[in-house]
């Protein structure tokens, strides 16, 4: 295989872009797959589906018997209000500002509500943390609300109980504990940024002085916290990519992970976008231990072991003259080596951009790397410009691993009488395996679990209290920049849910308060307290509380509470909450553990004075303490779609092709192609991973650019009690990366052994679906090449003259809709796909159907590699592909029933009720953007999903073709609104769902007949091109080519003109 690749790469002119290793090798299997419009037997019903399939066949036969088409429309009812709410116009949606917290941090949103049903989540355009965009998880929260598998009742040992009984059980537990000052009372929650919740917690801890509050989030950055706290108050970094001309990441995936990623994506993309006015772009160097989307955007990407990143950072600090604590350096110090060359080039570039550069430490790297990054930023004068340090937005920053370890020790010692777990943490599934949480949980007398699902932990607890979804509850939380953001309910709790603060309040002196009362009471007092005056957006103080509160609920956030405005430091910003384990003791505790394990003790961090470089590292990384060298390195990461398993039951996220691999519905262990070759592994081979006495099994996936001696595993799979969507089959329950995670090495460690089991696990991968056979779908140039010769983009493809047609030119009067997608800005985060699913009622098809090539996503994000598969610096590009809305659309000509026709504004209309399902259109579509309902994918049976669907879009049934319509429902609504006001649709008035959600503003839609519209201006750029234009389809969706900004010292121009090796 390797030799054929090499010869293909060598024999080609120009660069070769490939989607998968199969395509690169051009195997016969791949060609066979590609040349079939639908995979073999795709339209045959030979899947062993049993009774359901039989019933479907029977009903289809009945329909064919002639009854189907002759149904009379059923009689329907109209049920008006008794008293109609003010402001509500029946048939028009209302939008409410709210927030969806993720690991405690607010994601500000606007929620669309149709007659009381929330149907779609958008970002809050006025909030600095969103600016109108959201990530995939926030988009998918709407399905989480209506999930039929949610916990539906309060139960005690499985028996349904009313809230009153739970309430009295808590009261009696509280009065028992009062005598002991709460010595047996423990709380476990995720990180809390909510000021009102923190106050309730503080008052509970004041009532029970011996009680302890523990925090645990499986995906949390203990390293960043420890480094920040070592600096005293004001150690949390906020980055400003809009000012950073050179960015270096030390294993940081800032574009897709972390609470600020949406805003960071926006700033980063804006600062890199070439426009008519802006001709400069920033440069990104990514040092990373596993391929990430940030690495895929980088101009230079260097893969290394996770444990080597610290050494690299230390050398970099030395090279830029930053004071760096002593410690192990990465292998190569030789300036002639690859790393030496990189260090020199990066250091030079950083020093040339003092005050305009930025070094970011990875959230999964230990504290020492964060300290190093801070030291470098200080030495380069970046602090205050591209990065600002401020107080933490968390009420009580704690070392999560140590906090949980402390709790488990107490549980083991029988010190815990009452354990209250808040917010759906599921530690039985996600706690480090060496803590044996499930076993220790049995020693707790009274366990209370509060969460959205009856999951692995809930089923081992006595009391289960269903959580209220964020769309059902009141609350407040801080966004990444510190702004207090209000969560307000859009609908009454569907299943008797209670928010965490309501459960916690049962142990206060005012036990029976609902979330709204607690929240309003807190902010009434906060408003009254001076000297901090809450001001409205225009800088004027509010007249009274009511004016303040109305404004806050309208805007969704409280102005002036950001870290930059001193929000968290103000009296009512965060009440002083004693944390269960202060971070310094946690670090000390960890050190004691390491010493016990025979590791070298690390120096004690002296307290750092602000404004001086940190004098010494905080602690050695726990990973360095593992002793057992040799073997492979194991890297843990949250799954890009189901995270740590909290979204396992969300079908939208399960079916979303995971960025970079395009695997759906499964966990995979990533290995480099070289390692796979060495061990004789193919994609889908199940391997056994043995690591520190623990074992797990996982199917492998070869990922170009992966460090050779590492294996990356992802959390979130192997769930046993996630729900009907997320439950793993018996054999797949071993695909659980938490089975390998130990508390001393939460993110990486060495000593992994892998063994081939001989089993294969079929993977549903969309990477090879809908391939365009390498006809220059992505076009790339460096900024220097483009500046010198802008035609370089157009020359990479062929555009036929407009006269090349037998038909007269159609003149589009009025609107002429078009779209420009900047693949230079696209990060591949796939939020557009989920937004489109939510907006257009797109069904979930399931793993088997995806494997058959029948996924229904109207906008897919194609992923291309360039370069040599064995090269660590393999390039990666993303290309969102919606319908191209061709002016000369091949699909329209072949429809025998005229179900797809051209509108006067240039849309390829798709009329579902007319479609008879010949699939000719899809066969004739060169872009492969049409999707066919082979089976009844839409869930017509689950009542709870009815109110979720967008009432402005038809719900499609079996046998119907569907595709992207440029969100024609939004165009029509805007057109009608404009006509009612006797004006034209303004530019930017119609946002397609994918455009609205995009954090990097890569998608722009608008009227091409308006020369001043944003999309018209973008299409005038020389880097604008159409895919497969040589077919004379005249696509309305065009792309803006990727421009890269490589450092000439690392990538000489001469070698770039031919294919890289």
């Amino acid at each position, binding site marked *: 295989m390797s030799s054929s690749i090499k010869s293909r790469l060598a024999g080609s002119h120009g660069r070769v872009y490939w989607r998968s290793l199969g395509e690169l090798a051009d195997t016969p299997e791949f060609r066979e797959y590609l040349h079939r419009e639908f995979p073999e037997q795709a339209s045959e019903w030979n899947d062993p589906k049993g009774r359901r399939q039989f019933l479907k066949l029977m009903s289809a036969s009945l329909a064919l018997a002639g009854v189907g088409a002759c149904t*009379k*429309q059923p*009689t*329907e*009812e*109209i*049920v*008006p*209000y*008794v*008293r*109609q709410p003010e402001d509500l*116009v*029946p*048939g*028009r949606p209302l939008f409410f500002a709210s927030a969806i917290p993720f690991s405690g941090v607010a994601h500000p949103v606007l929620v669309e509500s149709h007659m009381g049903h929330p149907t779609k989540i958008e970002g809050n355009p006025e909030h600095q943390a969103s600016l109108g965009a959201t990530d995939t998880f926030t988009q998918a929260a709407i399905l989480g609300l209506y999930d039929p598998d949610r916990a539906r009742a309060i139960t005690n040992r499985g028996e349904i109980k009313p809230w009153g009984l739970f309430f009295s059980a808590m009261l009696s537990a509280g009065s028992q504990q009062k005598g002991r000052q709460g010595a047996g009372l423990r709380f476990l929650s995720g990180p809390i940024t909510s000021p009102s919740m923190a106050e309730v917690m503080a008052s509970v801890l004041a009532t029970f002085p011996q009680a302890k509050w523990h925090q645990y989030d499986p995906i949390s950055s203990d390293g960043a916290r420890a480094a920040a706290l070592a600096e005293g108050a004001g150690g949390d970094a906020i980055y400003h990519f809009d000012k950073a001309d050179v960015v270096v990441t030390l294993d940081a995936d800032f574009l897709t992970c972390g609470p600020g990623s949406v805003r960071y994506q926006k700033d980063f993309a804006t600062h890199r976008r070439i426009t008519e006015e802006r001709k400069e772009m920033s440069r990104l160097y990514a040092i990373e231990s596993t391929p990430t989307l940030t690495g895929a955007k980088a101009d230079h990407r260097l893969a290394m072991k996770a444990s080597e990143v610290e050494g690299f950072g230390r050398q970099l600090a030395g090279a830029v003259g930053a004071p760096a604590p002593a410690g192990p350096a990465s292998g190569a110090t030789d300036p002639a080596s690859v790393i030496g060359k990189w260090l020199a080039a990066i250091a030079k570039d950083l020093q040339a951009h003092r005050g305009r550069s930025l070094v970011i430490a990875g959230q999964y790297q230990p504290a020492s790397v964060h300290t190093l990054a801070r030291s470098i930023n200080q030495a380069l004068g970046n602090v205050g410009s591209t990065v600002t340090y401020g107080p933490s937005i968390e009420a009580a920053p704690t070392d999560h691993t140590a906090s949980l370890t402390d709790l488990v020790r107490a549980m083991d010692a029988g010190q815990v009488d009452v354990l209250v777990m808040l917010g759906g943490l599921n530690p039985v599934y996600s706690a480090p395996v060496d803590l044996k949480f499930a076993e220790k949980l049995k020693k707790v007398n009274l366990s209370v679990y509060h969460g959205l699902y009856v999951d692995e932990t809930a089923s081992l607890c006595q009391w289960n209290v269903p959580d209220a979804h964020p769309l059902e509850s009141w609350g407040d939380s801080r966004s990444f920049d510190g702004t207090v953001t209000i969560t307000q309910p859009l609908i009454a709790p569907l299943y008797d849910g209670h928010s965490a603060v309501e459960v916690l309040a049962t142990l206060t002196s005012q036990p029976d308060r609902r979330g709204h009362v607690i929240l309003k009471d807190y902010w009434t007092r906060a408003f009254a307290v001076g000297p901090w005056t809450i001001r409205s957006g225009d800088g004027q103080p509010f007249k009274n509380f009511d004016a303040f509160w109305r404004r806050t609920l309208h805007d969704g956030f409280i102005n002036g509470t950001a870290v930059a405005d001193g929000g968290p430091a103000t009296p009512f910003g965060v009440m002083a909450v004693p944390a269960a384990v202060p971070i310094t003791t946690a670090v000390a505790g960890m050190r004691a553990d390491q010493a016990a394990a025979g590791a070298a003790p690390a120096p004690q961090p002296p307290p750092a004075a602000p404004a001086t470089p940190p004098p010494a590292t905080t602690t050695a990384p726990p990973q360095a303490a593992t002793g057992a060298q040799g073997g492979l390195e194991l890297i843990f990461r949250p799954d890009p779609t189901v995270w740590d398993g909290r979204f396992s039951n969300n079908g939208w996220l399960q079916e979303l092709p995971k960025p970079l691999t395009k695997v759906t519905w499964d966990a995979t262990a990533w290995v480099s192609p070289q390692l796979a070759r060495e061990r004789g592994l193919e994609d889908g081979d199940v391997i056994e991973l043995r690591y520190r006495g623990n074992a797990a099994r996982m199917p492998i996936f070869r990922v170009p650019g992966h460090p050779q001696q590492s294996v990356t595993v992802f959390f979130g799979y192997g769930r046993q009690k996630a729900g009907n969507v997320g439950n793993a089959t018996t054999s797949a329950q071993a695909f659980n990366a938490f089975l390998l995670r130990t508390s001393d090495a939460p993110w990486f460690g060495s000593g992994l052994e892998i063994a081939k089991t001989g089993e294969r696990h079929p993977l549903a991968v969309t990477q090879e679906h809908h391939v365009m056979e390498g006809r220059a779908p992505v076009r790339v140039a460096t900024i220097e090449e483009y500046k010198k010769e802008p035609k370089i983009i157009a020359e990479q493809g062929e555009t036929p003259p407009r006269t090349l047609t037998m038909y007269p030119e159609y003149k589009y*009067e*009025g609107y002429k809709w078009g779209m420009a997608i900047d693949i230079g800005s696209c990060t591949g985060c796939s939020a557009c796909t989920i937004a489109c699913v939510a907006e257009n009622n797109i069904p979930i098809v399931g793993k088997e159907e995806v494997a058959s090539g029948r996924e229904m996503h109207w906008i897919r994000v194609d992923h291309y590699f360039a370069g040599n598969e064995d090269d660590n610096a393999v390039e990666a590009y993303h290309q969102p592909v919606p319908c191209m809305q061709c002016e000369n659309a091949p699909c329209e000509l072949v429809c025998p029933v005229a179900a797809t*026709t051209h*509108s*006067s*504004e240039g*849309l390829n*209309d*798709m*009329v*579902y*009720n007319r479609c008879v399902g010949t699939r000719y259109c899809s066969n004739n579509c060169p872009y492969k953007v049409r999707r066919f309902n082979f089976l009844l994918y839409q869930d017509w049976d689950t009542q709870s999903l009815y109110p979720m669907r967008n009432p*402005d*879009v*038809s*719900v499609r049934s079996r046998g119907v073709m569907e595709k992207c*319509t440029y969100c*024609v*429902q939004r*165009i*029509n609504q805007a057109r*009608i609104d404009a*006509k*009612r006001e*006797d004006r034209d649709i303004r530019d930017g008035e119609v946002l397609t769902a994918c455009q609205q959600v995009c954090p990097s503003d890569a998608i722009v839609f608008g009227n091409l007949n308006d020369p001043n519209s944003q999309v018209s201006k973008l299409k005038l750029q020389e880097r604008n091109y159409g895919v497969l234009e040589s077919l004379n389809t005249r696509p309305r969706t065009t792309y803006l080519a990727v421009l890269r900004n490589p450092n000439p010292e690392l990538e000489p121009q001469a070698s770039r003109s031919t294919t890289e090796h």
Partner: protein
Amino acid sequence: MSQIFHRTTNIYSRLSILAAIVLAATLGGVVGLLHLSGYNTNQNMPVEQPVQFSHAHHVGGEGIDCRYCHTSVEESAFANIPPTKTCMNCHSQLWTTAPILEPVRASFRDNKPLHWTRVHDLPDFVYFNHSIHVRKGVGCATCHGRVDKMPLMYQQANLQMNWCVNCHRNPAPNLRPRDQVYNMAWEPPANEPDLGERLMKEYKIAGPEQLTSCSTCHR
């Protein structure tokens, strides 16, 4: 070898071919007529409602404007059915003991909505918008008929696509000045035969190409 069939059977075979054609045509015709008939379209069929509400009385007799109850008609796709509160604005004073109004009072008292039966019910894949039609000078009576003369509400038009598209191809004959949209009794003025053409220009009504694009109504 002699023929199996006598030559007189030719006439039978010809007749049966003819009969088959006639039968197929008749069957097709019957199905077509059934499709267009009130049985299928519900055209001209009064519908039973929880309250025997009379538009003839309220609109024709009392002269109440359409928008007093159907408040959202100018803003929304949907011309709403009024909340019970709207009924009670008057009927808390008038006919307070009338037995026919008991369901209305019960709804208001118990805070339970009335369940009305839809009279004009388009299929779910059709997205009709009231607000734009009234804005462009299509009168209520144009589609709904003389509601002021209907003691029980019924659907006057057949609401089939053919009926919609006829007007979308040539809206001019069905237009009236905006201030006459809610006037049930409006007749086109005899002295201005070109009124429709004039209003087409004045109200900037789009051409048939846009009005008959599939996505205008289907999405």
